[in-house]
């Protein structure tokens, strides 16, 4: 016991020394990440701490650059697996297709509908499947249009029929995603029941993933106190609508909603249950510190990348927040303003490889962000860990914390790698550094077991020896005592 405490003290010293070493090494010998401390992150205690920029704006794309005239209120972006970029230029009722070098490939503004030329009317959402099936939420025409690779009309989904829908239901699709089984998920304005799911042949099947109703306690009090007539005049409690959705390779829908409370990012499975892991230091909701007058972030787009990494776009402050699969905040970039890398009215985000595109609705521009060394390392660390490549993850996380010692969840990644390697004592330190008590406990149990095992012979020997001494002592005392009694008698 005593020995162990001493060990604990020595360990603490070691931690101190280690952190000092880190502090100096990051300043002296290692390359500082580009951008210095121009970004921020949140610490375990909820404080804002500086962080190196993970992304830098490198280019600005306008319609004029592409030679198609300026974009007018573009609303959505989509990037396919082969890095073709689809820009939905809503105001001009057309779709621009760019290649990965941002050169124009095609402009889609009409299609052949049963022998007649047909076009779009203020389309709001676009989705392209792996086999290049193009789905457009043609909002003005109240329909979803599917075109094939040759841009031939495959089908039109409009005026859905179901007993779930009211007779006067107004179908206004604004966003659309399609899963691997060609089921279509449509976000429609004025629908509070979640997303509309359509079967592969375009029949409405069901709603999935409805948001929960939030009841304002004060509002509720007023309602209970008012008469029936007054109540009918009041606003009804309705669930909030979703603001956007995206689908990942596994077919899970990631969605954002406009709620200012509760979970405003959701990962929905086929049943519409929210299965997002929220194991970060705080809920994934954009900014956690803000002035009361400004209010929390208003998330309007979500982009899910590989390895369960997802990014959300905050329309209120123009920032893009990226989280890993456990909902640890990885990095923040963007903002509102006039410089390159700032936006006026950002409306959509999408990844091209590791680059990030941000679409500005008001200016009709697309900002291209490229990763910095820090961003690349961190992305690679999270990916390696997700792949189960502990060794690579360990290396990358080490590099990451050398560039940003404040990134607390990275220490947990290192701890997990060390735990897997069997280096429990070191793992404990790193878990402690990242306030990961589950990891700490796991490493500690193994560490304790190892220590006890190594001292087991000593402990057992001393116990046996002590027992022997005790027995002998008693015997001797009895013998002496007996003698004494005898002498007294």
């Amino acid at each position, binding site marked *: 016991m005593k020995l162990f405490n001493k060990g604990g003290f020595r360990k603490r010293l070691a931690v101190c020394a280690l952190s000092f070493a880190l502090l100096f090494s990051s300043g002296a010998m290692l390359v500082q990440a580009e951008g210095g401390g121009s970004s921020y992150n949140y610490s375990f205690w909820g404080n804002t701490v500086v962080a190196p920029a993970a992304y830098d704006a490198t280019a600005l794309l306008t319609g004029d650059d592409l030679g198609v005239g300026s974009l007018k209120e573009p609303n959505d972006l989509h990037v396919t697996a082969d890095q073709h970029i689809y820009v939905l230029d809503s105001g001009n009722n057309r779709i621009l297709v760019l290649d990965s070098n941002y050169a124009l490939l095609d402009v889609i503004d009409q299609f052949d509908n049963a022998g007649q030329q047909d076009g779009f009317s203020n389309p709001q959402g676009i989705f392209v499947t792996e086999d290049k099936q193009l789905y457009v939420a043609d909002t003005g025409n109240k329909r979803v249009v599917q075109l094939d690779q040759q841009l031939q009309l495959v089908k039109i989904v409009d005026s859905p029929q179901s007993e779930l829908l009211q007779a006067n239901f107004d179908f206004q699709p604004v966003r659309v995603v399609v899963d691997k089984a060609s089921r279509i998920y449509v976000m429609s304005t004025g629908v509070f029941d979640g997303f509309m799911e359509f079967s592969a042949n375009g029949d409405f099947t069901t709603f999935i993933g409805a948001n929960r109703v939030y009841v304002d306690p004060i509002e509720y009090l007023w309602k209970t106190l008012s008469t029936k007539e007054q109540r009918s005049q009041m606003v009804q409690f309705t669930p909030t609508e979703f603001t956007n959705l995206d689908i990942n390779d596994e077919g899970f829908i990631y969605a954002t909603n406009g709620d200012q409370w509760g979970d405003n990012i959701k990962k929905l499975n086929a049943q519409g249950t929210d299965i997002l892991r929220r194991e970060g230091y705080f809920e994934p909701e954009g900014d956690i510190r803000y002035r009361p007058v400004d209010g929390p972030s208003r998330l309007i787009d979500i982009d899910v990348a590989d390895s369960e990494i997802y990014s959300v776009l905050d329309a209120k402050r123009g920032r893009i927040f990226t989280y890993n699969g456990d909902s640890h905040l990885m990095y923040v970039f963007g903002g509102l303003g006039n410089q390159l890398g700032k936006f006026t009215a950002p409306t959509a985000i999408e990844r091209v490889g590791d680059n990030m595109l941000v679409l500005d609705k008001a200016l009709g521009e697309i900002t291209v962000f490229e990763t910095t060394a820090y961003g690349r390392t961190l992305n690679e660390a999270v990916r390696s860990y997700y792949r189960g490549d502990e060794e690579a993850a360990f290396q990358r996380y080490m590099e990451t914390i050398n560039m940003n010692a404040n990134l607390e969840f990275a220490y947990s990644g290192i701890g997990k790698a060390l735990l897997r390697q069997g280096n429990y004592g070191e793992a404990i330190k790193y878990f402690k550094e990242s306030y990961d*008590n*589950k990891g*700490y*406990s*796991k490493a500690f149990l193994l560490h304790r077991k190892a220590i006890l095992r190594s001292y087991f012979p000593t402990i057992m020997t001393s116990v046996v020896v002590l027992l022997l001494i005790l027995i002998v002592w008693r015997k001797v005392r009895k013998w002496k005592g007996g003698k004494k009694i005898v002498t007294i008698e």
Partner: protein
Amino acid sequence: MSPSSKELVKYPFYLIVHPFNGYWELKYERSNKINLVISFVILLLLSLTNILHSQYAGFLVNLYNPKSMNSLMEFVYVLVPVLFWCVANWSLTTLMDGEGKFVEIFNSTCFALIPLVLINFPWIWLSNVIAMEETAFYHFSNSFALIWFVFLLFVGNMTVHQYTPLKTIMTMLLTLVAIGFMAFLCLLFFSLVQQIISFISVIYQEIVMRG
């Protein structure tokens, strides 16, 4: 009769396991002066336990922001609630036919704190060698210490004021209400004083600037 030093140490332990006899002795048979010394020692030990806990207790039971750690405040966190309790209790019981003097109330309250020291102190060190599953024992002991403390407080109050059990419970609940009132008044007082001070300093600055 001056008790020997060995007896001095033994008495508090006797009290916590035999509260009825112990508190009776505290009120009628023992010197208040010596009890007062023991009381202050207990308060000091409790503060020390709390400080050591926030500094040395195991990571799993002690998620503590080192930036917000302040040892002097730990003394205040012990002293202020105890004083609040004693003052509130004394104020109430003088109106409710309590027989306790202030010093007796203070002593009985402090003696009741012993289990908190006795149980929490070893756990500071023990908590460094437990895993997450074993923290249940830690939390159990903590609750046990707390219940023991409340029970001692109850018996102490009953004995010192010579109340019936029901009346004691009523007084204790009322004391909590009174503490609420006192806290509110203190807040009011301090914010008023603050305003007066800032008012005076503003006037002073203005005079200095104009002069």
